[in-house]
């Protein structure tokens, strides 16, 4: 049952409750596949092959140039159109942990589970690269120096990340409160 959904550009965020248990929260970020990417890469490959054929037939170079260009084309297509990601999900089970799933177009699903007591805090971080700057949602893990990225391949807009961040915060806060009450009772 879809509780809430927002859409911006190629990204769509949905918050639903698939299971009857009301505590389990699932957040999805779905990426619409872009035609432009495929068109661009295939055009490039065709141009390369065409120029190799031209050189071979009219420029009288050997046929091996065509073989090399075909190999290069295959390599280029494999590199630029790697197994694309269809959807990334976060399943929050409050007393148990958080499961991070990556769904590929080919149907493959990769899952990663983080137990709730390992999570110190979920944080929204600005990442700076030499050419751009973007927001990511990460989990600070107790005892580890590296943070775990919640959305490993996709870069959804921060408006969508905020909802997931709030859900993660409330899940980890509940656990912290429970821990505190346990210690005070004892």
């Amino acid at each position: 049952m879809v509780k809430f959904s927002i859409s911006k550009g190629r990204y769509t965020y949905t918050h639903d409750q698939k299971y009857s248990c009301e505590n389990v929260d699932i957040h999805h970020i779905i990426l619409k596949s872009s035609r432009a990417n495929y068109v661009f890469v295939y055009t490039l490959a065709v141009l390369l092959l065409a120029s190799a054929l031209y050189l071979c037939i009219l420029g009288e170079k050997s046929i091996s140039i065509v073989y090399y260009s075909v190999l290069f084309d295959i390599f280029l297509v494999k590199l630029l159109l790697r197994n694309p990601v269809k959807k990334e999900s976060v399943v929050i089970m409050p007393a148990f942990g958080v499961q991070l799933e990556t769904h590929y177009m080919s149907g493959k699903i990769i899952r990663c589970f983080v137990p709730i007591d390992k999570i110190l805090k979920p944080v929204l971080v600005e990442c700076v690269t030499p050419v751009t700057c973007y927001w990511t949602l990460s989990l600070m893990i107790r005892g580890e120096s590296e943070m775990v990225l919640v959305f490993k391949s996709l870069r959804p807009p921060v408006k969508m990340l905020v909802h997931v961040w709030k859900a993660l915060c409330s899940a980890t806060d509940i656990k912290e409160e429970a821990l505190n009450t346990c210690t005070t009772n004892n």
Partner: protein
Amino acid sequence: MGDHEKHRIMMVSDFFYPNVGGVENHVYYLSQCLLKLGHKVVVVTHAYGNRSGVRYMTGGLKVYYIPWRPFFNQSTFPTLIGMLPIIRTILIRERITLVHGHQTFSTLSHHALLNSRIMGYKVVFTDHSLNGFGDVGSIHMNKVLQFTLADVSQAICVSHTSKENTVLRSGLSAEKVFVIPNAVDTEMFKPAFEPPSRSSEIVIVVISRLVYRKGADLLVEVIPELCRLCPNVRFVIGGDGPKRVLLEEMREHNSLQDRVEMLGAVPHAQVRSVLISGHIFLNSSLTEAFCIAILEAASCGLLTVSTRVGGVPEVLPDDMIVLAEPNPADMVRAIQKAITMLPKIDPQVMHNRMKELYNWHDVARRTEIVYARALKCPHQDLLEHLSRHLSCGAWAGKLFCFVMIMSFLLWHLLELWQPADDIEEVPDLIFQTSMMERRGLKKEKKMTDDGEFGTSFF
């Protein structure tokens, strides 16, 4: 002052914290004072070692450490249009209205100014040093400066001498250049509670990088001569550099180990404690646009002796400084004159005068006026930019135009690839500045829901 509109300023410089120096301190203090005046300031610099990404400093000053490697002397590698994507992203996400670049040697600031101009932003440039005209390095740097400053909105120099130098080097019109001197943090540089006694010995303090530019060679001549003439004088030398070896040799040669103390590199936080141990501050620079070191010394109550170079005569009133020509004989004469002037000096009175004369808040207010003027400058399109650049020189003009056209094309390509609407704007985080304000803010927080970060999205 009336109502001033609040600006969103991007300070760009290769030189920033964790590096410590004149330009770095200027950018930091100016940013802090502008934040206090209510403007939004973002600093952009290159990554220092592991320090890369976004960091926040006091008062909510956001600093972007862009992971471009420094290439020479802490400056980033000049790629002309390579910085355009990241600069454009930061300009859009922070909703910047004005770009302020610092220092001629900072390639990052030149890139940012160039790219921002192409994208239609108003830019201000501050020049912090004096440069020559004769050697190969200077000629090239001046040509680059001519390129960058050809269409800058306004420029700021730290002294009138520096203004003359910048105008001559860059061909900028003098009406566009403002003079706003640097200032000093008088709260940090206070005289000692009990100043050192003058009866037994006179301590002369020197704190500078021991390089040719700062006149380390002059010191090698001056120190033995003065020690010979005045038996009660002692020197304390702080700082490090290639010329340190010469000073050590001079000390050995003249057996001055008990009269000349070499401290090595002094961290900025300890400069005050070194200064207050002395009576006179000696500055032997061969060139200086504006010397903050002598302001720090005067703020600590020391009498200054300096070479009459560059902008130094403009810095302090005549009763706080003794000037000399940059040759050993005249410097020795000046130091002897300073020693006779010492009994009339009261460190606390000097410190109070410095508080009146130099103040970073005043610098920020004056810079605000420059920003207001810059924003009133008319908008220019590409053709007007190109015509300005074409006049820079026969070959250079055409090269500059070519670079501008490439930048323009790259900008439009980026607009197609990653439209401005796709780049999200960052919410402004409000930082608490004082206990009183914190109490006030707490009440406000209860009235608004979710806190500042939450409300900006809903």
